């Protein structure tokens, strides 16, 4: 057995990220990749699938051009496909998964935009001393904004009711 093989073999079963079993996350990624590859084949779409583990979650990205139809307006199709992919993983593992799906780099671009938006809101709030409400966002998007606001040293809260829930950035 080569060194590489022994590393990815029995030794790894004990490896965990925090309390999360890395092997479970990798398995989640594999199941998701099979489900998505099947769809790409049938729909005759070109896309490569990358798998990663980020913040204790499996992250699966479909990379390629011409995938806009699978993202949809405001990522609606992407979110639907993520829901279905999570159900496919759940069927195989029997465990709920927080797996994140990205297609055509949509989420990573959106994350960059949200961090910029949060930074601008922080500047505005610092200058005015008054709270500022942002537009409605999904839970994942709000989390990105909360983290960016906290990083900049201010507080934020979510208000309103889904799907119109939004972040309020508050003065220190």
């Amino acid at each position, binding site marked *: 057995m080569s060194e590489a093989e022994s590393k990815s073999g029995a030794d790894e079963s004990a490896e965990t990220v925090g309390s999360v079993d890395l092997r479970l996350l990798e398995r989640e990624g594999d199941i998701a990749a099979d489900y998505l590859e099947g769809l790409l084949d049938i729909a005759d779409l070109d896309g490569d699938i990358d798998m990663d583990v980020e913040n204790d979650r499996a992250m699966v990205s479909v990379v390629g051009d011409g995938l806009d139809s*699978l993202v949809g307006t405001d990522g609606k199709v992407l979110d639907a496909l993520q829901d279905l992919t999570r159900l496919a993983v759940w069927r195989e593992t029997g465990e709920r998964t927080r797996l994140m799906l990205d297609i055509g780099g949509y989420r990573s671009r959106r994350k960059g935009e949200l961090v910029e938006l949060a930074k601008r809101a922080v500047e505005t709030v610092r200058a005015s001393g008054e709270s500022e409400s942002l537009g409605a966002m999904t839970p994942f998007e709000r989390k990105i904004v909360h983290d960016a606001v906290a990083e900049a040293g201010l507080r934020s809260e979510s208000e309103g009711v889904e799907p119109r829930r939004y972040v309020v950035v508050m003065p220190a």
Partner: protein
Amino acid sequence: MLAQALEHLVAGIVEHPDDVTVRTRQQRRGQLLQVHVHPDDLGKVIGRGGRTATAFRTVVSALADDNVRIDFVDVDER
């Protein structure tokens, strides 16, 4: 292609994937895709508040050029 894509998506989440069939019917206002699943899986493909059924409709509509309707039925109702 749409029926095949939908069959793949549904079969991937149910407990009885071999019981999944999708039939296509041409209607005046577009295609109707009729998804047949095992009776035990009907709740799962519809989901809480219809969330999963909506997800299937969203993905299939994204792949379709025209209007598509999707109905979910259990295999006993033919």
